[in-house]
């Protein structure tokens, strides 16, 4: 097993005619990492992956795999294997022939190919199914065959383009774990593409969040969730409540923002923007639903919000309370279900509090559209 090869994208820009699909992307992926590109549909994720696998040459910049410049090297010569969004299993070949296709084109004998295919079939728990046609397999089984086919080529880097998007929820969650396990076992670099932030956060060592061809932030899933560097990342990854306003004062890495409807609120400046935010700037402050709680009467007004309840939903493990927010957006509070009957009554005026360390402020910007 190869021990993982680093992939570096240096100043990659990719244009289709006048349209710029990817703008100045700089990413360096450690060997053996599970790295994800996360972004809404159409933001250029597949385009980046195609540049890595060699199906298109970037208009500017370089792709390095294991330190080697890949310019001019075709997809069949790169040490990558791509798992297509639609899997692209060869419909006329049996499962074992699909899996061992890379050996067939390299000239291996049928016996060798069959042996290797059977080993891989055992690994993906499909032993004995090698003589079926892909059309005779279920969605999850096809998925695993596609993975086995890619692994059979002994790639240094495995590229996965939304491989789970066609599966139902249960299977998707199961396959997440399975993929992560396979990655740990084979130890090669995985580059994973998804528009599902849950997938990106659970599986990845590092995540790049993309918006319309631009990479906004690269970090661990944990940091992306806790310390989003732009309003887009804050609103795209997980749920978030936004409060718009102007910076009133800054002390250290904390800022007081005069919000449009909730008065002066205290929060932490997100690490990436410390120093970028000045007093008087337009700012956005984000508080996660789970960071809000019902306020005691003597709570500090700098970390307290009051608003009217619009609606309450019971979600099993928690209650979601929706309150009147700013700019047509609702404020959502998530309260764990500890046996309460309900949290609030419709129309009730509630006071909510939060820890300043759980609220992040950053310069105002574009939000992810829901």
């Amino acid at each position, binding site marked *: 097993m190869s021990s993982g090869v680093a992939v570096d994208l240096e100043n990659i820009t990719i244009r289709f005619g006048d349209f710029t699909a990817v703008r100045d992307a700089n990413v360096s992926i450690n060997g053996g990492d599970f790295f994800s590109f996360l972004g809404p549909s159409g933001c250029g994720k597949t385009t980046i992956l195609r540049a890595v*696998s060699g*199906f298109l040459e970037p208009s500017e910049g370089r792709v390095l795999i294991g330190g080697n410049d890949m310019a001019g090297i*075709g*997809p*069949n010569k790169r040490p*990558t*294997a*791509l798992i*297509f969004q*639609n899997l*692209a299993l*060869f*419909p*006329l070949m049996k499962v074992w022939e699909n899996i061992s*296709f*890379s050996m*067939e*084109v*390299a000239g291996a004998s049928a016996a060798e190919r069959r042996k290797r295919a059977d080993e891989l079939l055992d690994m993906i728990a499909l032993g004995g199914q090698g003589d079926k046609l892909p059309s005779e397999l279920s969605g999850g089984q096809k998925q695993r065959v596609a993975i086995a*086919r*890619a692994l059979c*080529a002994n790639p240094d880097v495995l590229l996965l383009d939304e491989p789970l998007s066609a599966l139902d929820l249960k299977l998707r969650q199961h396959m997440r774990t399975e993929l992560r396990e396979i990655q740990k076992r084979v130890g090669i670099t995985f580059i994973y593409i998804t528009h599902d932030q849950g997938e990106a956060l659970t599986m990845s060592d590092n995540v790049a969040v993309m918006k319309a061809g631009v990479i906004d932030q690269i970090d661990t899933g944990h940091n992306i969730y806790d310390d989003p560097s732009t309003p887009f990342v804050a609103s795209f990854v997980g749920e978030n409540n936004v409060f718009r306003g102007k910076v009133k004062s800054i002390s250290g890495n904390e800022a007081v923002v005069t919000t449009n409807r909730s008065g002066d609120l205290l929060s932490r400046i997100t690490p990436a923007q410390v120093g970028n935010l000045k007093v008087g700037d337009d700012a956005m402050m984000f508080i996660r639903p789970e960071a809000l709680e019902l306020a005691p009467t003597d709570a500090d007004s700098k970390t307290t919000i009051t608003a009217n309840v619009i609606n309450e939903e019971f979600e099993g493990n928690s209650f979601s309370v929706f309150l009147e927010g700013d700019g047509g957006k609702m404020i959502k509070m998530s309260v764990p279900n500890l046996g309460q009957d309900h949290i609030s009554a419709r129309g009730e005026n509630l006071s909510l509090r939060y820890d300043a360390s759980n609220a992040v402020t950053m310069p105002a910007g574009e939000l992810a559209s829901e």
Partner: protein
Amino acid sequence: MSSANLIRVALGAYLLIFFSYLLGPLVVMSLTAFNSSSFPTVSPWACFSYEWFDVLFNDKHIRDGIYYSIVIGIGTVILSVSMGLAASIVLTQVWPKLRSTYYTMIIAPILIPGVVLGISTLVFWDRAGAFFGATDGSFLYGLFHNGIFLTILGQSSFIASYAMLVFVARLQRFDTDLTEAALDLGATHTQAFRKILLPFMRPAIASASVLAFLASFENYNTTTFTIIDYKTLTTVLAQKVRLGINPSISSLAFIIIVLTIFAALAFEAANRNKEHKLAVKKGKASERKSGILPSFMTGNPAAILLVLLAFVVIVMVGTAQKYSPETCKIEVREAKQIAIQQRIEQLKEARRLKDEAKAATQSDAPAAPTTAAPKNSGAFGNVFAPTNLSDEDDAAPKAAPKDGNGAFGNVFDPNNLNSE
């Protein structure tokens, strides 16, 4: 009668008329192949006979024609299927803005009359020969003036377009990701083509080949110009029709019809069996149990018909070896002889009466109608006489009557009758 019934009856009548229109001529033509009458006709029915099959199999022109038709057909299949495949692959990959122009260009030969294609093929390759400085007697000159070579080129110029249409329809359903997946797994472009695209195109290649062969086999308009000194079945038949036709053509038609039905039934039977196997595999149908019929025939009407047809053909071929229509023929000829005798008597009687009348009035006016009648029959008789067709090596029709009529000499030879 309720309106639903009325519609059903009307629909039935329509279908009846439609199928008679479609199949009637073929049925009539097939029947004429078995009538001993020397002109393809059903009524009057003379004798049931297989002799026209003998005539057919012994006709060198037709045999040669079939041979060259097949040679040209195979050549056309190879050329037009490869050109059509290439054209269709290019079509799916050219720049979208040029696509419709390219498509129009490729499809144009279908819209151009075959006659024009034939003449232009002839002219073009003659000029091409001149351009390359091919002189009479050189290899190139020979090639560019070779009927088979030119016919294959001429036919392929438009049959390739048909083939391309078949391929484009199939290619539109091809997932280009499959080719990319193959490349990604280390295949070269050639390997991706051979192992992924070509197998996907195989059914289309098969149907395009059949289509191309049939189109080539039945082509006349282009072939008649490009064939030069060779013959194909269509040009031989056309020539025969011009000179006079006999039922051996019907027997050829009958053979072609039977082969077509055979192929269609075999295809259908195989298809049904395949579908059934699939259904069994998916658990939607149970395995057939062989009862009275063998298992491949149960629940498969096409297979049953196929076996019946094969049986009928075998019986026919068997009886053809034994059956001889000679006694019937003799009777028919005798009847004809008597009819002719009677006719002659009538004519004589008419002439005698006329002569008498003439003698009564004036003596030297020519008797136009009486001389006209034999002339006419003679002219038509000659056109349709089998002797016209069997100019060189048609030994069979002459030989057969000789054998059969040995005792009677040549009195009853149909050739005697027709050509007087």
